């Protein structure tokens, strides 16, 4: 930046220091796969692409940490390429991976693997094609936030970036198609067992979608990967003794949070576009909802132990009738959410 040398030194050192914990995190992620049998499902593909692309973006960040270099590429498309290189794989790809992974847990059916892969390849190629040329353009002196260019040498790079943006758009479109196809075909991808991926942690030990109280009885944790430990010791899906069930207290359903959420969206929109009547209406709606809620004194419900027991036992009986799915077949129609023990 065009600041004093002292300030440049402070920013340069701070920028380099960010690389240290970030590098540690990258090793953490890599080490979670060591000696594992990695299956290249959509979720894993996005995770892997996230790690690779994030490292490339991190390295251009280290370049930017050097004040003389930063002085030259400041406010250029090099910077734009760098932070998109961090944000798109670093945030978006990670969120996509989580979306594909936990979707069946939340909604009870799997997403279409085929359309997931199509979206993955569109996103990945599209991202590289769209943003790698921006590094070159930045080094050639193209400023960011420019509406019109008169430098012919920029043109091929800009066309490449445009094609990349088109591919990313196809990636977004295939995600929408995927959601539509998956909802349409949901009856053939249901996972009532709740454990379609041979999961290691406790959320996979309950039905999909989970009951509103999550766990029928509080699970006992013996190991870091508690559910894997249970499966290895033959303790998963065990019928608890009748006296282990207790009444469960949970909050009642309330419409207040959705009202606040919707009104907040309206408020942000109205403030951005100076729509004052909507600003006032949504602001009043938010606080009216909060105040109305404060007049509800009865906000909890009790689910009796007998009901919990009945639901849980019925689910366990259902699970005992399910076929076990080996990992190799986890994306096929036969996966009903009960994983085969993995040796």
């Amino acid at each position: 930046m065009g600041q004093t040398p002292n300030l440049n030194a402070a920013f340069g050192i701070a920028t380099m220091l960010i690389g240290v914990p970030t590098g540690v995190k990258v090793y953490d992620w890599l080490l979670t796969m060591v000696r594992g049998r990695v299956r290249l499902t959509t979720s894993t593909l996005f995770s892997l692409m996230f790690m690779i692309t994030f490292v490339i973006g991190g390295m251009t960040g280290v370049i930017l940490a050097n004040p003389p270099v930063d002085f030259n590429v400041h406010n250029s498309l090099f910077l734009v390429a760098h932070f998109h290189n961090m944000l798109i794989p670093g945030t978006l790809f990670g969120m996509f991976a989580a979306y594909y992974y936990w979707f069946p847990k939340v909604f009870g059916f799997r997403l279409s693997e085929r359309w997931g892969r199509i979206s993955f390849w569109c996103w990945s190629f599209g991202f590289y094609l769209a943003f790698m040329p921006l590094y070159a353009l930045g080094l050639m002196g193209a400023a960011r936030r420019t509406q019109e260019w008169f430098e012919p040498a920029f043109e091929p790079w800009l066309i490449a970036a445009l094609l990349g943006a088109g591919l990313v758009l196809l990636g977004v479109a295939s995600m929408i198609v995927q959601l539509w196809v998956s909802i349409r075909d949901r009856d053939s991808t249901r996972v009532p067992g709740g454990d379609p991926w041979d999961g290691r942690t406790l959320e996979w030990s309950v039905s999909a979608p989970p009951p509103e109280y999550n766990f029928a009885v509080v699970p006992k944790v013996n190991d870091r990967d508690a559910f894997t430990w249970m499966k290895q010791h033959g303790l998963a899906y065990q019928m608890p003794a009748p006296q282990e069930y207790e009444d469960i207290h949970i909050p009642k359903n309330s419409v207040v949070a959705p009202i606040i959420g919707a009104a907040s969206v309206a408020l942000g929109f109205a403030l951005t576009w100076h729509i004052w009547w909507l600003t006032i209406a949504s602001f009043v709606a938010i606080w009216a909802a909060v105040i109305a809620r404060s007049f509800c004194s009865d906000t909890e419900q009790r689910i009796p132990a007998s009901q919990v027991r009945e639901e849980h036992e019925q689910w366990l009986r259902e699970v005992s009738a399910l076929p076990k799915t080996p990992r190799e077949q986890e994306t096929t129609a036969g996966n009903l959410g009960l994983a085969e023990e993995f040796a």
Partner: protein
Amino acid sequence: MSSRHPGINLGDTDPATHQVAESVVFGFWIFLMSDLVLFALLFATYAATSQHGLAGGPTPSDIFDLKSPFIETMLLLVSSFTFGMASLALKYRQDRGRLLLWLLVTFALGAGFVAMEINDFVRMAGDGQTPQQSAYLSSFFALVGTHGLHVSAGLIWLVIMVIQLFVFGLTQQVKMRLMRLAIFWHMLDVVWVCIFTFVYLFGVSQ
């Protein structure tokens, strides 16, 4: 039962509520800290723009006289005292009467403060001293206005608590809400002391 969280504790008179209040009041203190971060940012912006953001417009010593801010300060300080009396009534008295009385006195003082502040703002706008004039005046209205909005929100909260005192009576929930409103109110007083010192006293002395 020992007194633990800051603010008035109900340990001696209502141990059951005190037990629940511990975590609730702690959570509210965390909220207050984040609110104070907001005010810290506004103070820092005000400090910078009052030196470098005048844009040829009025300086702090041009626009302030201490009469109105002093009366406002007194109103708010006394309202903190009356809320303290309300808290004591909440803790030691079984009847609602005295509690209601002190809450209403607090409301009147707070409403007087907000009315005087609005009057100040209208007078300034009449003299052409609007937020659009300079970065300095923008940050002045942002800082003092945010505090004024907080006090107004506190007034609405007070009204709702008075209504709830009639609807629910002195229940555990109503007690804990009043305890939180009390520390909110006192915090606004502390912020105002900073505004009075930093904006007004410091402003006229420059």
